[in-house]
């Protein structure tokens, strides 16, 4: 009954999305604000109805109502409660419902939040958001309905994919979707600016926090996905250039470019067309990302069942949105020529320009690598893949270039930098970077990438640390307080700038983690029996025993390993080889020990009946910096998001 109620609510929401589109058009025709109110009510109601729809689906999962096909396919009676809720977005249909539910929540929030201050924008916002919601709701109702019943009712459901039974996987999809969907708000404002011809800087300022919020969610989602892959998939890596990882990385790359490039328009009124282009591309790539994952055109750990109809529908929908957006942009672009030209190559404008260039080439690379196989297959029928070496080769130089720009960008003056200014800001960082790189060379680091990476990281980090130090001293001196208090008040005085620098520092920490754990990773695979031991990178591992353990919906063989270093006992590691009983799916559960900011990562992928086990140990130096750097980036963004409003300049 409650399932039918949910289904009905979603159908009504579909109808209301049409009302939203119609009300937007009528408002623009009649200039009668009452119609915009109708649209606002429609959007708000859609949110309420989709909340009912989500609630109904969650209830069906919690009550384990296997007469619902989607519930039966993605959960069973033994699935722990925590994961029955997460199972709602464990498959295609529920994921789409979550996507559009988040979209409706954001649209409702945006409509009420900006109603008073942005009356001219409202009809466009209502129209664009309703249009996108219509597209997704129609897809849900007609092609991938999570409320469909099955008969006869199966006695029990199939299991949720064991790999998805994980806390990080509970949060990963909602975070990604919040990121994707969050970009729809600046996108709507951009479309409003284009349609209405009010092409000033206002739309950018109004949507600034939305953009930052969306970026934060997308970044968190990607990092969670990497973290999950790291400990759950059992190969000891966190990024494999999997097509679906790429699908979420592309909007991130362009979104990041956009985040930086809007600053130029705010301060210098340049890059107007470019910013509109970037936000359109960002949201389009968010839709393409959804399309790639949800249509089944890509073979990957994430891709759900292939359904050509569904794929074709999403493709057409994405094409329509992109077509309308770019069509309008092209028609408007000649009225958008900025009157200001760039004065000098050695200026902050120019650094931003190159930042954008690097980010876009990175995006194009990922786009090419991800979609080329699809194109080749369609045209020639041949199956190809683009391997990780390609991405690594291209991304290393791009990353180093971007980090260098990150070092100079915040300190180089606008318009034109004098030699004196350059010397003042960059003399010390350059010396520090040279000294640091030399020291690493002396200590035996020979990898060119590690050295180049170290150089730019030290350069950029020194610039930021010097900056923090000097503002702390300045404010301490001015207000006669200690340096820490001085730093805090300086930080609060221009929180937008300094919180961004915290994010930059986070990026640097993350990069050090990536370089160290990629280049200096060591791995060893051995076959051993109880009592045997092996060495890896100075660590000593001894298999003490193998025994059976049991969970709610799995049984496992657990290897008990003692970890020693220099004869000193460190810990006991317990990797497992699990079999999920419902689906009879085997998984390899890793055991991890953190030491010196790095990880000893151990799996036991195989145990033969006669007691011979295969163990795989990976030493990942400094890998904790990847996650702590990610956390620091997030902290910086939060400080940016929740900065005092009046200080906005």
């Amino acid at each position, binding site marked *: 009954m409650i399932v039918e109620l949910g289904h009905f609510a979603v159908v009504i929401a579909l109808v209301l999305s049409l009302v939203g589109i119609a009300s937007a058009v009528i408002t623009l025709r009649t200039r009668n604000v009452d119609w915009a109110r109708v649209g606002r009510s429609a959007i708000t109601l859609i949110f309420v109805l989709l909340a009912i729809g989500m609630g109904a689906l969650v209830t069906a999962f919690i009550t384990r109502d296997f007469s619902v096909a989607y519930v039966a*396919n993605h959960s069973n009676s033994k699935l722990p409660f925590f994961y029955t809720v997460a199972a709602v977005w464990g498959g295609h249909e529920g994921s789409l419902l979550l996507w559009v539910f988040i979209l409706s929540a954001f649209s409702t929030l945006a409509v009420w939040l900006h109603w008073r201050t942005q009356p001219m924008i409202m009809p466009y916002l209502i129209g664009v958001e309703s249009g996108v919601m219509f597209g997704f709701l129609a897809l849900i109702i007609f092609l991938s309905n999570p409320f469909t019943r099955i008969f006869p009712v199966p006695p029990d459901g199939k299991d949720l994919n064991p790999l998805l039974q994980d806390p990080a996987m509970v949060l990963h999809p909602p975070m990604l979707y919040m990121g994707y969907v969050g970009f729809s708000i600046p996108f709507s404002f951009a479309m409003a600016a284009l349609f209405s011809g009010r092409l000033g800087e206002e739309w950018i300022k109004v949507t600034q926090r939305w953009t930052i919020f969306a970026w934060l969610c997308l970044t968190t989602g990607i990092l969670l996905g990497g973290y999950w892959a790291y400990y759950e998939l*059992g190969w000891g890596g966190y990024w494999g250039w999997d097509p679906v990882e790429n699908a979420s990385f592309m909007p991130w790359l362009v979104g990041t470019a956009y985040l930086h490039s809007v600053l130029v328009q705010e301060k210098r009124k340049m890059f107007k067309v470019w910013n509109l282009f970037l936000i359109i591309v960002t949201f389009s790539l968010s839709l393409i990302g959804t399309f790639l994952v949800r249509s089944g055109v890509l073979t990957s*750990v994430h891709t759900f069942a*292939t359904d050509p109809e569904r794929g074709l529908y999403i493709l057409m929908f994405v094409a329509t949105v992109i077509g309308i957006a770019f069509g309008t942009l092209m028609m408007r672009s000649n009225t958008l020529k900025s009157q200001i030209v760039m004065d000098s*190559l050695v200026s902050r404008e120019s650094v931003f320009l190159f930042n954008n260039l690097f980010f876009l080439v990175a995006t194009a690379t990922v786009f*090419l690598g991800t979609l080329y196989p699809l194109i080749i297959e369609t045209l020639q029928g041949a199956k*190809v893949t683009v391997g990780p070496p390609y991405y690594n080769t*291209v991304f290393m130089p791009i990353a180093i270039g971007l980090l260098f720009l990150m070092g100079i960008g915040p300190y180089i003056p606008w318009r034109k930098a004098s030699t004196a200014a350059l010397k003042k800001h960059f003399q010390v960082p350059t010396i520090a970077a040279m000294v640091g790189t030399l020291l690493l060379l002396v200590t035996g680091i020979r990898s060119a990438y590690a050295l180049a990476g170290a150089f730019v990281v030290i350069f950029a980090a020194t610039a930021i640390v010097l900056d923090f130090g000097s503002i702390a001293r300045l404010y301490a001196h001015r207000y006669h307080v200690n340096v820490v208090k001085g730093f805090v008040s300086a930080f609060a005085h221009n929180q937008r700038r300094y919180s961004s620098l915290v994010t930059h520092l986070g990026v640097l920490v993350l990069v050090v983690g990536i370089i160290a754990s990629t280049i200096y990773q060591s791995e060893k695979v051995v076959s051993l029996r109880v009592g045997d031991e092996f060495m890896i990178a100075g660590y000593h591992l001894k298999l003490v025993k193998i025994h059976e353990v049991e969970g709610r919906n799995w049984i496992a063989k657990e290897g008990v390993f003692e970890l020693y270093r220099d004869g000193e006992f460190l810990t006991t590691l317990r990797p497992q080889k699990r079999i999920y009983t419902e689906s009879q799916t*085997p998984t390899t559960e890793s055991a991890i020990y953190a030491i010196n900011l790095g990880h000893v990562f151990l799996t036991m992928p195989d145990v033969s009946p006669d007691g011979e086990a295969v163990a795989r140990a990976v030493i990942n130096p400094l890998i904790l910096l990847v996650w702590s750097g990610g956390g620091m980036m997030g902290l910086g963004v939060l400080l940016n998001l929740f900065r005092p409003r009046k200080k906005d300049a």
Partner: protein
Amino acid sequence: MGTTYKKTGIVVSILLVAGALGYLALGNFGDNLVYFVTPSEVRAFTPDHSRKKVRVGGMVVKGSVHTHSEPVGLTFELTDGAATIPVVFRGIPPDLFKEGQGAVVEGYWKDGKTFYATMIMAKHSEDYMPIELKRAGVQLPKKDFMRTLSP
């Protein structure tokens, strides 16, 4: 005159950087493409193919899997129904690698006799479909279609 000169400088440097990056992105592309083939196609390989990395999809022949421990690895046979190739792999196969089920191996057909795999992929789940296998025309019972192969 000065302004024009400056502008040209900016445009030229942008084009230079863009060109270098474009070369970086496109110049490396061709060498990194890995083609997907069937065991029958591998059998038809000429010696020229021996240095080209490929992916081969097929079914693991029942009873053909032999593991060894020094160093850890395994050998098995991969078939598409029409042709069969022997595969050697050093390392640990994925959790879902099993006899009588689909697998994709990546590696080299080095000496015209044996396939040296550097990676094995196998996946099984109700939700996942073996797109590569299906398109490669591998005939499997309906039940076995419920597998996919993931990088």
